[in-house]
């Protein structure tokens, strides 16, 4: 089957093209989709290229938050003075995704729509209580990441932006796979006036929050508050990189480091 390639002129046009395709896929940076096609794990009939749609690559500080357009590349988030000032942990996270060439192409929208269980951005969205804005609705991060490579998005639904509230302090700590640079375990800690949110990526089948850790940190935002908490390894991943017990241990190690870094103002 030959692939059909579409360059839509508007978001509405893109959604319509995808809805009309037999097995269509949106294309953003292609840093996940094209290798997957190369490995013959995906064989779409149509690609609908979002990359030249106007207005989707942008970063904006609003009254109480930060808005990042879906087509904004990792390199642009990492280098943005606006992001560095508002949520430095988010810029730092983007700057540690993959390698420089991946960061020139990969986008925040593509990363969260893909929802790789070891991807970095999902942890940021969940911990920062972000809102995913699509062409038809707004979805809270808590309701967006549903399972391994599974999100709340409809097949023809387009992420247009992500809205982040600004935390009092935040930090992301990641144990990288030395080969792929994905997170073997990644922990995003965000402190707000009304509580603390902690999201863990890389360790389980999908990014998740830990209520035990969040409660302990809400009562005392310091690494020692976590001394008596341990993570149940039974739901975590075991693979050739690391077993579940090691991942459970590293969640606590990285959470403590993230809290210390958030306090130090990194």
């Amino acid at each position: 089957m030959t692939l059909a390639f579409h360059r839509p002129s508007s978001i509405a046009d893109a959604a319509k093209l995808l809805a009309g395709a037999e097995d269509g896929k949106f294309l953003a940076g292609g840093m996940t989709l094209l290798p997957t096609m190369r490995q013959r794990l995906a064989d779409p009939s149509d690609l609908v290229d979002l990359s030249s749609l106007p207005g989707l690559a942008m970063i904006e500080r609003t009254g109480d938050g930060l808005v990042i357009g879906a087509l904004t590349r990792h390199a642009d988030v990492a280098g943005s003075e606006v992001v560095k000032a508002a949520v430095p942990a988010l810029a730092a996270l983007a700057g540690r995704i993959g390698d420089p060439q991946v960061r020139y192409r990969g986008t925040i929208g593509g990363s969260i729509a893909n929802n790789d269980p070891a991807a970095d951005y999902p942890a940021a969205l969940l911990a920062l209580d972000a809102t995913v804005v699509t062409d038809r609705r707004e979805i809270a991060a808590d309701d967006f990441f549903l399972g391994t490579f599974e999100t709340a998005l409809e097949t023809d639904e387009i992420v247009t932006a992500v809205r982040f509230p600004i935390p009092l302090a935040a930090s992301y700590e990641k144990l990288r796979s030395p080969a792929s640079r994905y997170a073997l375990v990644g922990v995003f800690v965000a402190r707000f006036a009304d509580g603390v949110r902690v999201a863990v990526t890389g360790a389980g089948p999908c990014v998740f929050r830990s209520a035990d850790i969040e409660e302990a940190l809400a009562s005392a935002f310091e690494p020692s508050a976590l001394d008596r908490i341990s993570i149940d390894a039974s739901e975590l991943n075991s693979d050739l990189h690391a077993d579940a017990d090691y991942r459970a241990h590293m969640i606590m190690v990285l959470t403590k480091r993230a809290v210390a870094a958030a306090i130090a103002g990194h």
Partner: protein
Amino acid sequence: MKVSFTLNAKPVTVDVDPATRLADLLREDMDLTGTHIGCDTSQCGACLVLLDGESVKSCTLLVASLEGRGVTTVEGLADPDGGLHPMQTAFRENHGLQCGFCTPGMLISAVDFANRNPDPTETELRHWLEGNICRCTGYQNIVKSIMAGTAAMHQRA
């Protein structure tokens, strides 16, 4: 489909199957075999080209998405009369390659890095090279070459 873009400073229009990747177009149809394909799945950096000045992996870049863009391959680094680019000269003088398979990607990555970082530290460079895999050298002479090439590009040699 027809796609028009700039390739090594010359305008080109190609008629390709929409699934064609830039690396294949360069190697199979344009006679530009300096761009190598190693992993074929965006891990190794052998296939890097400059896209509007930024180093990107041509093994996972569709020609279809190049309309109006500018591509420079390793062949485009040297002067039209064959004089080597300062970064190429630095690789030659510092023994920055062994088998040479990774070298075109290293050069493209290095030129992008040097353009962005006129006065880098070695640590910055080593982090930058995360997307370039070399099976031979152990990277020492590559790092030496790129530090020298960067200085030469900014005329501090």
